[in-house]
């Protein structure tokens, strides 16, 4: 019996794949005729829609073919219990759905496409939910079109219930009204582990009544008109759905309501004070005397680090949950007053990932979409007139005034995260260097020119007027000139330029040397001679700070183990390792080290019980790495 089902399902899949290939060829062919390049986003979006319709079709199909072949009555005379029969119908379809999904996930990862962005999670959940729901409605009616309509209605009820539960949880978590949490925030929710876990649990829980009611009612499935069966299934389904919804909300509250609100972001300031940026929109400055709070009156959460911290001000980037816009503001460290400097409306972000900023010594710089592209998803954006234009916004820290330069390049059609890896000037003209995911290094000139500097396998570094990129088994070094660039040197070896991606650029500094990993060893590259000197085994992470300083955190075990008892912090200077401090965790739990401009933050994780971890933070200020203690710091 299961062989029959496998045969049928595989037959359906074959037709499905052939149709898909046909449509892909057609679309690709049209693009080819029009002279357009292959667009992976278009393909991914088409594939995802195709998969959604596939899950719907596979879910609805179990008994349709039997009915069409007039074999349903015969099927019911077979020596199989009803539930076993249903299971035999269910499992091959589920297997195919999972295989299709894995293939898609693999392809998605291979293409490295951002077309679905944060919606990938939503797509995944909807894809499986659609299958379960449509399967549960596979005997709702003899007519396939009526089944299809019912599945649509069920999905229209299911998705809002799930999303409501998730949004409700988000509101509980941050103690904000649900109305603040729009559908657009879904992208950000999925980057938060508890929210993601709750979302998955809610989607599964809410799908259970559909499938469970079918399995329970199916024990009495027979040849009577579908209405009688539907009534029986509904009688099981309704209480199950109510229970699932109640459990979903309970679970959401349990996980979200009780989980610590969005982790505060800590920064050690120059004068050994501590800045805590918390949700919603709270800024606390801690010193020996206690806590001094500034309420910005924003429903915002903050980026992981300040954009800049000088003697008088700390400049921060935040995300306003009220309208989805992003803003830059400054906290006056003298009177702790808050001033908003700049705001970028919702929908202008170049990718669904977090926005990347760069301080070029004068201004904060970031990329955004143009007005025509704002709010458009990947494919729409690419196709829009001007979809190949990005704007570079420069915000003056003192006045908050901004200037905009527009840049046009075919790569900008892709909705992908952009990293600034440096900025400089030649003959009085500014330029900024960006790397877009999986693509080339681009130099954006102040006058609007875009210069393609070629590809780098992994992130590149700009230092000493030179661009360091990774090739196949070598490090390529090019000097950037006012007009073009010249190859300076190519050094053999398997290099990793940034092996801890915390900072991507050296800002406004002229270091004499940089450090990288070559063939599992730390090496020092002298920027004057480009000589490469071996330093030590790379049993840990190299930290590159925007100041051009390099540090190395050595792990007790490499790769790290949760049972590790210590980590050592070294300064990398003049081609040598200088031990600064050994951090012993002892019984305090496993520790993570974060290095900032003015100190080190150590987070120690202790396992409270099987499922719970508790974290404590300790702060150590440069240059002596003396531990700082603050009152009223939880």
């Amino acid at each position, binding site marked *: *019996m299961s*062989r*029959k089902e496998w045969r049928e399902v595989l037959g359906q899949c074959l037709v499905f794949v052939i149709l898909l290939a046909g449509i892909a060829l057609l679309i690709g062919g049209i693009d080819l005729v029009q002279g357009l390049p292959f667009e992976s986003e278009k393909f991914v979006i088409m594939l995802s829609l195709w998969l959604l319709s596939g899950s719907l079709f596979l879910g609805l199909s179990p008994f349709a073919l*039997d009915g069409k*072949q*007039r*074999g*349903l*009555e*015969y099927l*019911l*005379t*077979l*020596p*199989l219990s009803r539930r076993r029969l249903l299971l035999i119908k269910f499992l091959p379809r589920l297997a195919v759905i999972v295989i299709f999904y894995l293939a898609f996930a693999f392809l998605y990862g291979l293409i490295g496409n951002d077309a679905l962005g944060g919606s990938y999670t939503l797509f995944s959940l909807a894809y499986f939910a659609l299958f379960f729901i449509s399967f549960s409605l596979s005997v709702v009616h003899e007519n396939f079109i009526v089944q299809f309509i019912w599945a649509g209605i069920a999905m229209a009820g299911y998705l809002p219930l799930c999303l409501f539960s998730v949004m409700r949880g988000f509101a509980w978590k941050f103690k904000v009204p649900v109305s603040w949490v729009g559908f657009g925030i879904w992208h950000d929710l999925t980057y938060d582990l508890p929210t993601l876990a709750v979302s998955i649990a809610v989607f599964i829980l809410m799908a259970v009544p559909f499938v469970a009611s079918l399995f329970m009612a199916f024990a*009495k499935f*027979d*040849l*009577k*008109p579908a*209405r*009688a069966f539907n009534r029986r299934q509904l009688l099981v389904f309704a209480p199950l759905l109510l229970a699932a919804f109640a459990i979903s909300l309970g679970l959401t509250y349990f996980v979200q309501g009780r989980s610590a609100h969005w982790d505060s972001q800590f920064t050690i300031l120059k004068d050994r004070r501590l800045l805590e940026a918390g949700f919603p929109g709270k800024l606390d400055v801690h010193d020996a005397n206690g806590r001094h709070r500034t309420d910005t009156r924003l429903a915002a959460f903050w980026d992981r680090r300040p954009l800049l911290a000088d003697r008088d001000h700390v400049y921060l980037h935040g995300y306003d949950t009220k309208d989805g816009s992003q803003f830059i503001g400054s906290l006056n460290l003298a009177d702790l007053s808050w001033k908003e400097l700049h705001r970028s409306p919702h929908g202008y972000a170049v990718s669904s990932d977090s926005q990347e900023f760069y301080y070029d010594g004068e201004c904060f710089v970031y990329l955004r979409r143009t007005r025509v592209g704002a709010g458009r998803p990947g494919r729409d954006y690419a196709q829009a007139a001007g979809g190949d234009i990005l704007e570079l916004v420069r915000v003056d820290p003192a006045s908050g005034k901004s200037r905009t330069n527009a840049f046009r390049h075919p790569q900008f059609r892709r909705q992908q995260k952009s990293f600034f890896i440096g900025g400089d000037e030649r003959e009085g003209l500014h330029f900024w260097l960006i790397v877009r995911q999986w693509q080339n290094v681009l130099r954006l000139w102040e006058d609007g020119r875009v210069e393609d500097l070629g590809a780098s396998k992994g992130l590149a570094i700009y230092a000493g007027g030179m661009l360091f990129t990774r090739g196949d088994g070598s490090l390529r070094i090019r000097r950037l000139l006012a007009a073009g660039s010249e190859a300076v040197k190519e050094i053999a070896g398997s290099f990793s330029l940034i092996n801890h991606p915390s900072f991507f650029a050296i800002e406004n500094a002229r270091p004499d040397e940089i450090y990288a990993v070559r063939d599992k060893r730390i090496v020092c590259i002298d920027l004057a001679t480009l000589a490469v000197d071996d330093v030590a085994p790379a049993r840990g992470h190299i930290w590159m700070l925007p100041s051009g300083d390099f540090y190395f955190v050595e792990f007790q075990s490499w790769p790290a183990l949760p049972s590790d008892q210590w980590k050592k912090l070294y300064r990398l200077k003049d081609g040598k390792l200088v031990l600064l401090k050994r951090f012993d965790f002892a019984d305090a739990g496993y520790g993570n080290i974060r290095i900032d401009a003015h100190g080190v933050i150590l987070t120690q994780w202790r396992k409270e019980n099987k499922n719970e971890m508790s974290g404590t933070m300790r702060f150590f200020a440069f240059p002596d790495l003396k531990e700082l203690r603050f009152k009223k710091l939880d």
Partner: protein
Amino acid sequence: MSQAIIEARDLSLGFSRRKVLDGMNAAFQKGEWAVIAGRNGAGKSTLLRLLAGVLLPDAGDVVRSPEASTAKIGFISDRLSLFEDWTIERAVGFHCRVFAIREFDDGLVRRLGIGTKSRIRSLSAGERAILHLSLVLAQKPALLLVDEVLHMLDPYIRDLFVDALIEAIAVRETAVLTVNHAFSEIERLPDRVLVMDDGRFVIDETPEALRGLMKKVVSREALPNGVPCFFKKTEGEYKEYYVYPFHEKLRGEQALDFQDVALPEIVKAFIGGGYEQKRMA
């Protein structure tokens, strides 16, 4: 009395608001051939489907003896339900796998000269019936349920079909339960005749008993009081009166010519009587 191979206990079933069976009781014995007759919509096919398990009762139970497990019940519906797109070869292979049948006797199919590569869709009703019968006989069934199939068959195939049923009864003591309207070809075969009306059995007798219980009187006059008439047919000046229940002492009391009636006519009279009583009600 031997043990019942299958038993219907207080079976009730309705479609929407229409009650088709209402508290039906019946039992069928090993090795007996029972024929169920009745007017359209009486519930005959519904009963067979309930016994086969393709319909489930709203109330009551179908009690099967241990030897009449699902795998040992063969059901041939009037729809001759099989997967139509399949070839005979695939259908046989599938059936043998699911029912764990080691040997399949394709003699009946071969006698019709049907190729195993033929699709079921392309077969005539008779050929499909024979194929279906071959499949269920391969199960070595303890109970065979055949729903209004015989009348679809040409005389040759009908003989093949009936002979196979007789052999099953003889060799394996299979209980055979058929729903029939046409009795002429099997008049002498059944051990038991059941007539259904409004979801219950109004007659459940052996054919001999039934012949004794129903007589026909042809007359121009009305029947005298005291002679129970179940059904009346008018043929020109004459009327045919079907007397039920008939007792031999009626011959002495009434100067009437009580004629024997053949089984098909008895069944027809019961069905006609059923319609008539319904009209009068």
